[in-house]
């Protein structure tokens, strides 16, 4: 089809109607912001396409779609737009697909001369295009105006700090721990000293911890119950006792999937542990744990990928008790023998008690127990 610039713009905007409706139905600000971002990038590219493409064959929609997806993803990361990747891909897919359906089927039926008019939609199409822009701008404006407040902490604050409303907390040092009891809470660049649990999250959705540091907690560094959390770039160290765990995410099976990535956890009893939860554990470094490096236990499901587990005492990574674990591309080195328990003889990866573990591409170094499956559990190598 040979689009005019006006035709490209009108067609793109009017075809965005379904994804805009979906974004409003999702009732998440990031969804509306993402659609607005897609439209902004698309409209900017239309200026370029108009100069480069006098005629656009149908097959070109696929490579152009992938190119635009790359740009949208890059912009999303650069602008710190907090859209879950899977939903972002779904929204983009819906937008692309509806663009094709509208251009090839609906617009030609709606306007008989659609193709010969270079994609221009006439009066009704122009109104629809303006309506889409207005709705997207209104959505972004509303998202901006009602976004959670950002609180900047300076210096040291005596805790425990209890958060009961959506907000973004940035910077500072909190003594005595942080308790989160609200949805849509973000902690960024915060250091927590002491506390029973360093950061305690319960019954909360969409909690994000970015670049947080937990030092000297008494039970868990980060304690998550019946909640969904994304932890990106944390440290947990200097536990206050021998029973401290690094990150414990439990009883969250009915919540959205959680994620722990790019964390460094040292010297605790268990580095990262899950019970009855869906969690992805990726790109972490766990060292010198006294019980296990990473535990996915009690009917948990998820992946343990690209982690370094160094110097664990007894067991490096374990998939435990009816859990289903995908364990890929991890490095487990220097796992030490626990002489008090024959099942903890420096095992790098262990499946235990009806657990199912799928392994691929792991590197095991100086871990005398190697890889083993116990008590009706299975290990499958891909």
């Amino acid at each position, binding site marked *: 089809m040979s689009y005019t610039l006006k035709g490209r713009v009108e067609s793109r905007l009017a075809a965005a109607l379904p994804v805009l409706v979906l974004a409003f139905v999702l009732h998440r600000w990031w969804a509306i912001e993402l659609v607005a971002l897609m439209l902004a990038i698309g409209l900017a590219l239309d200026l370029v396409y108009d100069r480069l493409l006098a005629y656009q*064959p149908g097959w070109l929609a696929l490579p152009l779609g992938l190119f635009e997806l790359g740009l949208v993803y890059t912009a999303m990361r650069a602008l710190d737009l907090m859209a879950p990747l899977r939903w972002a891909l779904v929204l983009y897919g819906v937008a692309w697909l509806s663009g094709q359906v509208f251009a090839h089927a609906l617009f030609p039926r709606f306007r*008989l*001369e659609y193709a010969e008019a270079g994609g221009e939609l006439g009066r009704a199409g122009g109104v629809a295009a303006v309506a889409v822009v207005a709705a997207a701008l209104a959505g972004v404006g509303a998202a901006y105006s009602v976004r959670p407040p950002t609180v900047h902490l300076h210096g040291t604050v005596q805790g425990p700090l209890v958060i009961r409303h959506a907000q973004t907390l940035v910077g500072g040092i909190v003594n005595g721990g942080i308790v989160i009891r609200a949805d849509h809470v973000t902690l960024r660049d915060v250091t927590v000293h002491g506390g029973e649990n360093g950061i305690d999250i319960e019954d909360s959705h969409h909690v994000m911890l970015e670049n947080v540091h937990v030092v000297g907690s008494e039970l868990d560094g980060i304690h998550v119950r019946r909640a969904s959390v994304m932890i990106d770039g944390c440290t947990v160290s200097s536990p206050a006792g021998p029973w401290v765990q690094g990150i414990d995410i439990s009883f969250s099976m009915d919540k959205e999937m959680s994620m722990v990535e790019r964390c460094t956890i040292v010297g605790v009893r268990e580095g990262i542990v899950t019970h009855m939860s869906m969690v992805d554990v990726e790109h972490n470094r766990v060292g010198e744990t006294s019980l296990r490096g990473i535990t996915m236990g009690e009917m948990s499901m998820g992946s343990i990928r690209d982690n370094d587990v160094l110097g664990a005492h007894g067991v490096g990574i374990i998939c435990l008790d009816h859990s289903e674990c995908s364990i890929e591309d991890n490095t487990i080195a220097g796992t030490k023998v626990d002489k008090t328990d024959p099942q903890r003889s420096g095992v790098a990866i262990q499946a235990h008690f009806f657990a199912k573990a799928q392994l691929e591409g792991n590197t095991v170094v100086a871990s005398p127990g190697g890889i083993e499956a116990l008590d009706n559990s299975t290990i499958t190598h891909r």
Partner: protein
Amino acid sequence: MPSETVRCAIVGSGLAALATYATLRRGGVRPEEIAVYGTHEDPTEVWRTRAAAIRQQRMRSESDGHVAAAAFPGLAVREAARALTLAPLVASVANRYHPRVEDFLQHAESVRAESGWEQSFRRERIERITPVDDGFAVDGATFRHVLVATGHPGLAQPPEYNGAVHAYEPHDYASKVAVVGAGMAAATEWLNALAAGSEVVSIRRREPLRRALNVPREFFSKRGLATFHATSDERRAATLRELSTPSYPPGAAWDEPIAAAVADGRFSVAERASADAQVICATGFRKGWREDPLLRDLVETNDLATHGRWIELAPDSTVPALTDTMRTLSLAGVAAQWSFPAADTIAGAKYAAHGFLRHVCPTR
């Protein structure tokens, strides 16, 4: 005889007329508001006879090349649904889908059946269209809006081969065949005669052009047409002359049989046909408004603006001197090339139909 409620007339009853009729019906115009004047009740008859004469199997047009009002669903979608395969759709997005003639004709027949064409058809050859107050007198009745789609004015026959069979007339192939011409019909005849076991001599004055479509794609939409419409009359006529140069599509389906025949000594090129060869004139149609008695009368009676063999038209295929807010005279088919270079294609017929509909139903 048409009643006073009739407001549109289509003069001509071929594919362009059917495309216009379907468009008007889609636009909400009722069958009793339209009169179709022609000599063939079946709008595919003339075209089908010519396609059968050259044994054409596939259309040169693509999925959108059908006479229904809306482009979607096109013929590729219909074939995919019928055969339960994605192959036609994949071919279509790669611009490699050309519907079978049989499918095109079946679809045209279904469009005719669903449109109410029979209610509007009047078997009548119209020899004069006379402008009157607020309309045009046609066959004793007055119509506010008239579209003329009389098609090609006749087959072109080079004088030196007068009496030879034309490619678009029914014929068989002798053992030696001389095909005059270098366009799509000529190329089709080369392959037909070779397939029939004949030796083929191509009689041509120039090397054939290879173009996927009759006209480059940009001339099918506003993007290219805006430039075409803005250019001077001289330049526009030059463009049309250039575009009327005979051509046929590139591709192995054309090249390989000819290459094999050349290797076997069964295909050659010459300037004149030898006496022992059966001559087939694949030389297309007579060109220009002077060749069509109805158009010639319109031009001469109303002193319409012309440029060479073309009647000068507005961008929407209407005749400016005879079109205003109260009445419309449109041309469709080859006579409308001044507004749409590919006017003699299905896309061209629809282009004229869309312009006509905008005048008939100006609030659309």
